[in-house]
């Protein structure tokens, strides 16, 4: 497979996952506005979520005020925001268009339809749109694309590259959201264990569509330790760091097996190493280490795996 093809499949996966992450952020924002809250609290929480997506500076420069309309515009529509739903869907579709020959017609169809629908939505007056329909639009279409990928793509190298993109992006998004909880949402230690603290953890769970699942898995109360365990170490949780990483390793193993000895496997080895390190921890160890320190380490390791994927496969040995 051409390195450029692999690269486009990889980024197609990443951007589809990123579009979904953006839609989740919107959903959370919607919930925040529905709860009794001070205006300042609302703004702080929104700002922290923007920080999680790494785009709070861009938002402030361009829009200033945090209002529902501005946020919708920024997170869903704004092409200047590289993480907006519109940007990500457009980039994913562009990648798909470049590698048309590596996609089944169903996958292309799903991608292309999502983009055509997006253009229709963009032409509607904003007043005709509510947040829920925007998030439903996004998760509906990204699910359709993923379903088409699972149902129709050959389980070949291209499939592994797409899923590597999904896996790494998902691990990264979860880690960043978690990080924001400790780093931004909760600057004051006396809040730990308070009602506000619990509420914020709930917001994180909702942001990852994991609210119900959490209750099924742990029952009872929402505690920092359990939520963190659920999102970091619980292999049943679909967006947990360990699950995303496990899938990443699985796809890298698939590539290594497929390509044999002649092709470097440094990304596979690195991902295995990080997975082993993660498996060796329990949640107390992580809190002792400091959640923020742990997450910073993890995010760095992910970036390294991503770099090694690039070196092993995407440069083409020139």
């Amino acid at each position: 497979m051409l390195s450029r093809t692999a690269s486009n499949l990889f980024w197609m996966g990443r951007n589809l996952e990123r579009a979904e992450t953006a839609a989740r952020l919107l959903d959370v924002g919607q919930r925040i506005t529905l709860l009794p809250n001070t205006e300042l609290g609302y703004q702080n929480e929104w700002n922290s979520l923007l920080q999680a997506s790494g785009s709070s500076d861009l938002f402030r420069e361009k829009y200033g005020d945090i209002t529902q309309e501005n946020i919708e515009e920024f997170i869903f529509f704004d092409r200047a925001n590289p993480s907006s739903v519109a940007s990500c869907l457009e980039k994913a579709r562009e990648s798909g268009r470049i590698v048309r020959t590596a996609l089944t017609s169903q996958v292309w169809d799903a991608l292309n339809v999502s983009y055509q629908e997006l253009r229709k939505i963009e032409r509607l007056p904003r007043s005709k749109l509510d947040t829920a329909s925007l998030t439903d639009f996004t998760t509906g279409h990204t699910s359709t694309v993923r379903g088409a990928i699972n149902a129709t793509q050959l389980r070949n190298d291209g499939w592994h590259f797409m899923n590597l993109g999904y896996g790494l992006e998902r691990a990264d998004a979860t880690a960043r959201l978690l990080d924001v909880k400790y780093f931004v949402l909760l600057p004051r230690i006396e809040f730990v264990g308070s009602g506000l603290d619990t509420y914020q953890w709930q917001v994180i769970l909702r942001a990852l569509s994991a609210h119900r699942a959490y209750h099924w898995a742990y029952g009872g109360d929402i505690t920092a330790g359990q939520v963190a365990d659920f999102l970091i170490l619980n292999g049943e949780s679909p967006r947990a760091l360990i699950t995303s990483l496990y899938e990443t390793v699985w796809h890298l193993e698939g590539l290594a097996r497929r390509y044999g000895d002649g092709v470097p496997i440094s990304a596979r080895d690195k991902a295995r190493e990080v997975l082993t390190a993660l498996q060796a921890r329990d949640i107390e160890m992580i809190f002792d280490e400091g959640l923020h320190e742990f997450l910073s380490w993890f995010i760095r390791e992910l970036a390294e795996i991503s770099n090694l994927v690039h070196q092993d496969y995407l440069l083409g040995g020139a």
Partner: protein
Amino acid sequence: MMSYYNEMFEGDRVRDPYARLRDWVETMPDDFRQMKQAEAEALFRRIGITFAVYGEGGDPDRLIPFDMMPRVFEQAEWRRLERGIKQRARALNAFLRDVYGRGEIIRAGRIPARLVYQNEAYEKSVVGVVPPRGIYSHIIGIDLVRTAKDEFYVLEDNCRTPSGVSYMLENREIMMRMFPQLFRNNRIEPVDQYPDLLRRTLESVAPAKCSDRPTCVILTPGHYNSAYYEHSFLANLMGVELVEGQDLFVDGEFVYMRTTTGPKRVDVIYRRIDDPYLDPLCFRPDSMLGIPGLMDVYRSGGVSICSAPGAGVADDKAIYTFVPEMIRFYLGEEPILNNVQTWTLWKDDDYRYVMEHLPELVVKEVHGSGGYGMLVGPKSTKEEIETFRLKIQANPSNYIAQPTLALSTCPTFVDEGIAPRHVDLRPYCLCGDRIELVPGGLTRVALRDGSLVVNSSQGGGVKDTWVLSE
């Protein structure tokens, strides 16, 4: 008022090849047609067959209008066209071999040296480099128009990278999907073997240094190119990689592509980018589309480039006037297909004639394409003609002129029902170890009433083209 040959009717009588189609049209309920038209558009858009026109505003993924009424050839009509096209293709390649070699035709005084050697498309860097099998142009798109039952004229020869063949294939695909009954009732020769033939053609011109089964690729300028859909479509049907310049690199004697399993050697490049962009070390240094060092590998026989660099000198509009001469000179045959009478404005007599008759003529830039930079005298206002006259005066040798041809018309679905619209035809001739073409081509139709310009960039549409078997 000019009279135009109607492909379907002779007087009130329907011509034989169209007989069944007439029944089809007459029994078709009105709303059925509209429904099918919408269905066809939805199919085209879903498959993503669009004609990207970037940088001109509007929809970047525009559809070329598709007309459901096919254009039909009888077997005998087609056989004659086929012979004529193959003859032309042989002569054009003989010409290219000659002008990059000894230049016999010039020594014999049959073509002026200046027109060849000072031509922008003449590539001095490949003089003496003979490509495999001596073939320079591997895919030749010859534009034809019909003016009477037995009169076809060649408008131009496209020897570099003629586009549109994907429309030929997709038009057929969509017609078969929508109207299977039509295909059961008419015996229509298939065109879907084209990608196989193209692949075989490319493999048959692999360089001598290639010992295994040749690895062929299609080289595209990228997904912003208006023909990108076609590039990916052909790559897909042939099962070859669609590469951009950045995917290829030169190492030693060969060209390689970057793959996930390391470098892989490439033997044949079907390039869809123009000569000046092929190799920044040899041509335009600012080009990001090409591959540094490619021309060295090409010259030393490490890779085949289709069409070969320099092939463009054969499809120049000034050289065009000499193609009948080439056929006589190289093949010792009489041309089967006619050229359109052409005045070349660098000759004094021609210049005088053209300037006196501008309102009757079509004037084209020598290097123009896509229907840009031309004057259609009878369809232009006085002002437009005078503006164009000044452009000609400024640089006469940049122009040729031709009479306004009475292009045949073919019945076409329009808002009001069915009406005659002007058409042309581009069949695609493949030159490798054999010279072949599939029975059919791309029929372009001028959708505006009375318009003679069929280019898609000027609002033309396309039709399926049928060749009936015996």
